Every structure is written in C-alpha cells, then in structure tokens.
C-alpha cells in the first residue's frame, strides 16, 4: 500500500515543471549554510568550512540527480520526452505523418476486420456444450457424400452404434402457421426429443422435450426460438401453455430457447416441434431420406473411430435391406459442417489482408527510411554530444510506436466500419445460413490480434532505421556532402523493398483476377433457361385441400389462370422446387433394360405444362406437358439431356417407358427431352433430372414461376396479393426474382464476396506498390540531381536522362513482376478449391496482371524521370 502510494507520487512527479527542482536547490543550500555556520563556529577558516560541508554532502549535482531519480521514474521520463519529441517531429512533417498513418491504418483495418470474421467463424466456439464432441451423421451414395438419413436407418444407427452417448435427428422445414388473417409459412424444425439435450442447450423459459414426447401418441408440443417469442408474444411468459396450429396440428408451447442459440443446419427456425413418425408420410419408409443426424461422441472416441463404426453398421443394413443398397454412412465433425464451407474463403481473405498489411508496412518502412536518411546529421550531432546508441535507437523506436499507435487507432475505428459494411453486404439470407456471424465483434481476441500486428509493425518500422543508422560510422554523417554515399546504400535497400511490394501486389492482383474470372464464369454458366424477368413465389396450399389431389390440382390451376391474367405477365409455370435449389431425387429403371435393383438416382420435379415455356427452356425432342396430361391419362414424363445420355445411351427415349424402382410403380412414358436446366447448384455439374406432370402427381407445396414482360421485382407483391385473394388460407412466402435467387445462392454469394474483397485488397496493393516505386525513383532522382546536371552539362540529351531513370525503374518493375508471377502461381494452388471454370495458372490472368502492373509502374516512374530530364544543368551544379 505504502509502496503503491509512493509510485503514484512518483508518477505524478512526471509532470513537467521545475518547482520541485527549485525547492530542492533551496533546501540543499539552506542545509549547506547551516553546516558552514557550524563549521565556522568550531573554528575552521571560511574556505575550509565551505569545502568540508560540500564534501560531506557528497557534491551538490550528484545529490540533485539522485533526488530527481527518486522523484520520478527515470525510464518513463525519458520515454515521455522521446514521445513528446516524436509527436512534435511528426507534427512538423504532416505530409509524411498523414501518409504513413493512413497507409498503415488501411492495412491494419483490413486485417483486423477480416480477423474478426475469422474469429466469429473459426475461433469462437459454437453455442453448444462441448461443441468438439458433436458430430453430424450422413448417408453416402455415389455422387452424394452428405445425404440425409431415413428415419428407420436413424433408429438402427442409434441402436447399433458403440461410439455415441446420444443420437438424434432433425429436419429444417417450413411450417404453415394458422393466423388470425389466414395462414403464414414460418421457419420451423422437427427434432427428436433428445435433440437439445444432445446439443447441451436448455430453454431459458419453460422446459425441454421429454423423452418419448416424439412418439406418435404423444400430444404435439413446440419450443419457440427467442426471436419468435419476442416477435409473436412480445417476450411474455404467458406464451407458455398457449396452443398454435402448425401444419394443421394444434401444438402446445412448452419452452423458449436462449437468445444466443443458433443452428445453421435448419435455417432460422421459429418453431421447434417434436418429430413424430406420423408428421411425414416419408418417415416410415427406409428409402425416403429426409433427416439429418446429430450425435455426441463418447469420451475418448475420435470422429474417425465413429465414422468406421457407422460405416460398419451401414454395411450390415445394406446386406439386410435392398433399399439400402449402395448406401454407406459418414460421421463429420459438427463444427466442420457449420463452418467448413466458408473456412477456405476466410483463410484466403486473411492471407489477402495479411499481404496488404505487408505492403503497407513495407511502404511506410521505406518512408521512414527516407526520413531517417535525411536525419543522419541530427543523429550524428546527438551522438557526438554524448547520446548513447541505445538512447538514439530508442528515439526511432518511440517514433515508430507513436506512428503505429495512431495507425492502430485509425485501423480499429475503420475496422469497425468495415465489419458493419461487410455484414451489410452479406444480406439477410446469407446471415441466416451463417448465424455464427451474429457473434461478430471487436472482442478481446480481435483486440489481441490488433495488438500483435501493431507490435510487429512497430518492430519493423523501428528496427529498419535504427539498424540503418548504425551501419556506417555515425560521425561520417557530420561530414558535409556525405549524402551521396549514404543515398546509394539506401537506394539499394529501398529498391529491394519496392521489388517486395510489387511482387506482393502481383500476387494479390492474380488472386483477384482468378476469383473475379471464376465469379464471371459462374454467373455466365449455361443455365438452360433465361433467368431474367422471372418472378417466383412459394406457395403452401391450405389445410382444406391437403392430401386431396384433385382439389390441389384444381386450386393450382386457379392460381395459374389468375396469375396469368395479371398485367405484364407473359406466362406462368409451377414446379415443386425452383431451379438452382437442388431438391428431391428418385430411383428409376428403364423398362426394357436389364435391371437388378440398382439405385439409379435422378433429380425429380413435378412441373406444370407452362414450366418449360416460362423458363424459355430448349426442347430437344418430343413435346412438353399439356393441360390434358392429367390424372385420367397414363403417366407421362419429360427427361433432360443428362438423363437421356446416361440411361438411354444410343437410343431415342421418346416413346420408351420407365418407372420408379419400387415394384408397385406404374410405367411412365417419356414424351420429351429438354436441354439440361441448372436445377442444382451453379458450380456443380447438372444431375440427370426427371420431370413429372404436376397434374398427374401434385404436391400441396410448390413454387409459382412467372415471366414478366418487365419489372419482375414490382410484380412480386401483386402476385402474392392475387394468390391470397383466391383463398386467405393459402400461405405465400419467399417472393423473389430468379436473378435474386441466383445471386443469393451460396455459390454465387461466396464467389462474389471473395472476388470483391480480394479485388479491393489488390487495388489498394497496386496503389501502394506503385506509390512505393514512385517514392524510390523520386528519391533516387533527388539524390542524383548533381550527377544528372553534370551529365547534361557534358552534353547528355534528355532522352539519355529518361533512359537512365526508366532503366533503373524498369529493372525494379521487371524483377517485381517476375518474382510476383512466380509466387502467385504457387499461391494460386491454395485458391484451387475456390475457383470455378478457371485453372489456377490462367495465362490470360497472369499476362493481364503483368501488363496492368507494368503500365501503372511505368507511369509512376515516368513522373520523376520527367523531372530529372527537365533539370537545368546550371542550377543543378550550383545546388549544394
């Protein structure tokens, strides 16, 4: 306590001001006088009296110094003096200070912002108990490594496994909620009773599902998400015990989930209901795969061990049930499932921002070095006056720290901005798929990262000039005109830095080029349709028609005709699943071909007669469906080119018959072949697809697709209103344009984000790299003014001077580009997984980057070259 008080007083002593000093002088003087008086009284001669007193004191100045050291904290006092000096120094050079702080701040802000995303995604643990012990369970078939489970398989895996403490199943699904005004489709999830226990999440209000609450006989219960509780019940605890009607079933609200709970795999679900085997006609069938498995590993069991166990069980089930033929199993770490997709992009972005920070630091380092060069005399003088090397180096360190501190402040503030901007760019749809990004913040880990890069930057900035200033003997700095030799040394060192900058810029430019090109390729992939001017709306028919095919078809026809009569609508079609969404699959067989129970899995859609014409698909053979293809006629199907080529090689499928692989399936006649439509993800090869006539095999959930002559965005609300006028019990949701859907697919979105961000980094890198080159060449010209003057006085032409300067720049540019291209070919292999339709060593991109950087760099060096060539020899010789 006492010691602490003393430290405080000493800290307070740091305040500048000479009062304490003066007081001490007075005190010592007074005491000395008393001593002298005493000495005189004891008979000493005056001279000796004084001498004796001073000797006894041990000297006035040493006493004062010892006192001063005790009065403050000497190290801190030096530091403050250095800091004040550094700030004064920077203030006197506002151009240098602003440039350095801005450049470094931009580099830091990009790195910090990207790191915050990395932190929220890859470092911050998911909001479940011991997330490392959670795994996802999947069935695997050829071409589908992560396929959903069937309910019977889930039960068998749960029973037979030896590696899990708990196995649960879930399915994200839209639920139709009956409301006062009609019906609304809400995000929902069906989960088995132990689901939340397995996750280790407890409701903040009410209770969790009880064991057995998912059995068919149990009454229906539902747990609300926190958001739904706030939105629909204003956070009122009275919500518990109330009944809501979901998909026609009255369900009692039993609990509310915590606010920070999120679960990307189901989408943003508001209502979590217990999964009953009767909830879906699909569940009892072993061949119907709709569930995702979630399990918790036993202590000490690795994902690999669990995977092997599940594969073994899947193998046994395969032997036992024909429907499981060709089906394996797979166990994947749950964290990997949630964030695996964006991990490579984040790593690329982090590397990109790191390279940008590198360029920025190098750029500022060369600025600092130029300044250190011009301060050689100052340093030499200080050294000659007794400044120790440590003290002089300390000055550089302090200046670097002041610069970096200012940059870091700027960087943090703008990182906060940048993060908000990026979140804004992500959009609601993608945030729902990446809910962990809601945890994005400048937390302690991010601040620690910022501190670490600041320390690194400060080290780079202070070591370079401190080391440089000690290279040749300092005293040389005092000699007049010694700048020439020092200038040469610096020019060599600075030139190396510029080559490094240019090479880094090349790497970033190549990365941006590759990502940009693959984004372009992705958006211009052959869709097999014209996605412009299409409006879409998802529909859930009312409870009243559900399960009655004739009523479902009649209502769908009514919707089509009402929609078609809206102004600006050219044509209307419906499909159970929209393009680029993937969707269900079926096992088929071709009648007349040998069949031994193989699983010929094809994509599957129920579409109306207007579907293909509305999409502007291309008919290859046969015909499209007509309204006449209804339940009264034998079933007809249309296949795409991929299916025709795979299952009808060398045959004309039109007129041939096929069936589902089940024994009871009626034969279906192929009436037409269409060119492949992008029904699945943009970046995946098209899966063979089978189209079934909607009127023959309807579904109460489907999407309307409307081709508008113009203004499809404005059509969306009109569309929903027109549908609900038919029957308020019809739930409409997800009104979107086809372009919007394509732009928001994860593939397009992730490509766009990475292309834009890396593009931004690359642009800044180009700017900084050329600015760095300009700096080096301009400095070189300024130190060679006299030489150039002499050359011109001796008859050198302007052209010669240009050549002299541009040759120097050309060397730097050429080596920067050459090294950069070499590095980028290596770096691009890291990007391989993110590229679509582009090779990692794309010659067009490499050439393009070389040209762009070369031209920009030559322009940057042309300016100082021009200045050099316009030197007036007489002035140049007179100078200095």
């Amino acid at each position, binding site marked *: 306590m*006492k*010691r602490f*008080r*003393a430290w405080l*007083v*000493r800290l307070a002593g740091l305040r500048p001001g000479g009062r304490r000093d003066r*007081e*001490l002088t*007075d*005190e*010592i003087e*007074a*005491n*000395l*006088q*008393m*001593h002298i*008086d*005493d000495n005189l009284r004891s008979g000493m001669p005056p001279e000796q009296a004084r001498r004796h007193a001073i000797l*006894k*004191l*041990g*000297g006035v100045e*040493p*006493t004062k110094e*010892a*006192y001063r*050291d*005790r*009065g403050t904290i000497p190290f801190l006092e030096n530091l403050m003096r250095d800091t004040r000096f550094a700030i004064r120094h920077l203030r006197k050079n506002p151009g240098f200070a602003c440039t350095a702080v801005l450049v470094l701040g931009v580099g830091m802000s990009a790195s910090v912002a990207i790191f915050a995303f990395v932190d929220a995604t890859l470092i911050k643990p998911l909001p479940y108990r011991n997330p490392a012990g959670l795994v996802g369970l999947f069935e695997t078939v050829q071409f589908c490594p992560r396929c959903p489970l069937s309910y019977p398989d889930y039960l068998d895996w749960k029973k037979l496994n030896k590696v899990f403490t708990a196995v649960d199943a879930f399915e994200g699904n839209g639920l139709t909620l009956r409301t006062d005004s009609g019906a609304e489709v809400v995000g929902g999830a069906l989960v088995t009773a132990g689901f939340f226990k397995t996750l280790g999440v407890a409701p903040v209000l009410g209770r969790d599902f009880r064991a057995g609450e998912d059995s068919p006989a149990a009454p229906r219960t539902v747990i609300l998400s926190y958001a739904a509780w706030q939105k629909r019940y204003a956070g009122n605890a009275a919500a518990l015990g109330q009944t809501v009607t979901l998909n026609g079933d009255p369900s009692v609200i039993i609990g509310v989930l915590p606010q920070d709970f999120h679960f990307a795999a189901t989408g943003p679900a508001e209502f979590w209901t217990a999964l009953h085997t009767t909830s879906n006609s699909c569940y009892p069938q072993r061949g119907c795969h709709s569930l995702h498995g979630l399990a918790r590993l036993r202590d000490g069991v690795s994902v690999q061990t669990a995977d092997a166990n599940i594969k073994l069980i899947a193998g046994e089930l395969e032997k036992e049930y024909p429907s499981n033929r060709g089906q394996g199993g797979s166990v994947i770490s749950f964290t990997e499932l949630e964030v695996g997709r964006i991990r490579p992009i984040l790593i690329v972005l982090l590397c990109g921002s790191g390279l940008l920070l590198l360029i920025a630091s190098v750029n500022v380092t060369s600025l600092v070095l130029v300044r250190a060069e011009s301060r050689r005399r100052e340093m030499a003088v200080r050294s000659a006056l007794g400044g120790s090397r440590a003290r002089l180096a300390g000055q550089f360190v302090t200046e670097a720290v002041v610069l970096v501190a200012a940059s870091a402040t700027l960087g943090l503030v703008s990182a906060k901005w940048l993060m908000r901007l990026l979140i804004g760019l992500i959009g609601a749809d993608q945030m729902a798929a990446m809910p962990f990004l809601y945890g994005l913040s400048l937390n302690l880990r991010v601040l620690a990262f910022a501190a670490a890069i600041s320390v690194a930057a400060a080290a780079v900035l202070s070591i370079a000039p401190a080391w440089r200033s000690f290279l040749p003997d300092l005293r040389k700095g005092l000699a007049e005109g010694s700048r020439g030799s020092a200038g040469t040394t610096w020019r060599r060192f600075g030139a190396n830095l510029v080559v490094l900058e240019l090479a880094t810029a090349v790497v970033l430019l190549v990365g941006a080029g590759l990502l940009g090109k693959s984004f372009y390729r992705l958006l211009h992939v052959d869709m097999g349709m014209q996605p412009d001017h299409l409006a879409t709306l998802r529909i859930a028919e009312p409870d009243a028609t559900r399960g009655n095919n004739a009523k479902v078809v009649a209502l769908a026809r009514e919707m089509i005709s009402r929609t078609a009569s809206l102004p600006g609508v050219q044509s209307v079609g419906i499909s159970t699943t929209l393009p680029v969404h993937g969707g269900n699959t079926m096992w088929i067989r071709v009648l007349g071909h040998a069949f031994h129970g193989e699983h010929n899995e094809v994509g599957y859609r129920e579409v109306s007669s207007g579907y293909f014409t509305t999409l502007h698909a291309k008919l290859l053979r046969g015909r499209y469906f007509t309204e006449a293809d209804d339940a009264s006629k034998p079933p007809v199907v249309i296949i795409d080119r991929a299916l025709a080529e795979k299952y009808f090689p060398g045959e004309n499928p039109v007129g041939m018959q096929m069936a589902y692989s089940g024994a009871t399936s009626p034969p279906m006649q192929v009436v037409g072949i269409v060119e492949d439509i992008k029904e699945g993800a943009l970046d995946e090869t098209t899966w063979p697809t089978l189209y079934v006539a909607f009127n023959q095999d309807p579904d109460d959930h489907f999407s309307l697709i409307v081709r508008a002559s113009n203004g499809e965005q404005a059509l969306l609300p009109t569309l929903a209103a027109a549908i609900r006028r038919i029957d308020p019990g019809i739930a409409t949701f997800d009104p979107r344009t086809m372009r919007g859907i394509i732009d928001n697919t994860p593939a397009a979105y992730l490509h766009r984000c990475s292309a834009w961000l890396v593009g931004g980094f690359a642009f800044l890198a180009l700017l900084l790299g050329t600015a760095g080159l300009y700096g080096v060449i301009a400095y070189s010209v300024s130190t060679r003014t006299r030489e150039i003057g002499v050359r011109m006085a001796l008859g050198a032409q302007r052209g010669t001077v240009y050549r002299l300067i541009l040759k120097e720049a050309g060397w730097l540019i050429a080596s920067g580009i050459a090294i950069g291209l070499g590095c980028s070919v290596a770096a691009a292999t890291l990007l391989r997984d993110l590229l679509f339709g582009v090779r990692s060593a794309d010659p067009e991109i490499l050439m393009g980057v070389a040209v762009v950087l070369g031209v920009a760099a030559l322009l940057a060096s042309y300016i100082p070259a021009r200045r050099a060539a316009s030197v007036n020899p007489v002035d140049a010789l007179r100078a200095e």
Partner: protein
Amino acid sequence: MNDKTDIWQGTLALMVLKTIESMGPLHGYGIARRIEQTSGNLLSLNYGTLYPALLKLEQEGCIASEWGVSENNRKAKFYKLTRTGRRQLAKEARDWQQATAILARFLSPSGDAA
C-alpha cells in the same frame, strides 16, 4: 578496521524516523548531525544520501515537510512524523529488535552450545 562504519542498507529510514520522533520537527542537516551524534560518531553519513531517503519517506506518507525558520534564523525545510510514520516506526523498531535479539543469541558466547 575502519573506525567509522557506513550505514547499513535499509536502516537509514529507520534512523531518520526515530530521530524525528525523538527530536520533533527537524531539517535535513539537523537529522544528519543527530544521526551521527547518536551513533557516537561511529557512523559516517554522506549527507547527500539523506535527501532521496527523505523524499522516499515523504512519498510513502511517513513524514511531511514544510518550510520554517531554523534556530539560527535560516529558512529551512522541516520534516515531521505523520501518523503513518509513527506506525511504521513502531513496526520497524519491533522487527529490528527481534532480528538483533535473534542474532545476539547466536553470537553470545554463553549460548547453550551442544
């Protein structure tokens, strides 16, 4: 052997506190002289070392200072004991006595050596 001994590390503060306690408010020179006298001139004090020690005690709140006039009419800075200083003095004196008593037992010839 030297006839005058240097001050042991850490004991100067205790001597200063004790001196001020027994003498009342006193200036630096007076404290230094008094310490030498009390030691029977066996201690040789470098007066300059006294100022940082006084400053340290003041920073710790053991003593307080104010300007006054000395016996022969010179303006001087006087130090007096604070309550904290009194407590500190009592504690340090006790510790010191204990330490010397222990050492004395070791060094006394009549100790019950085995």
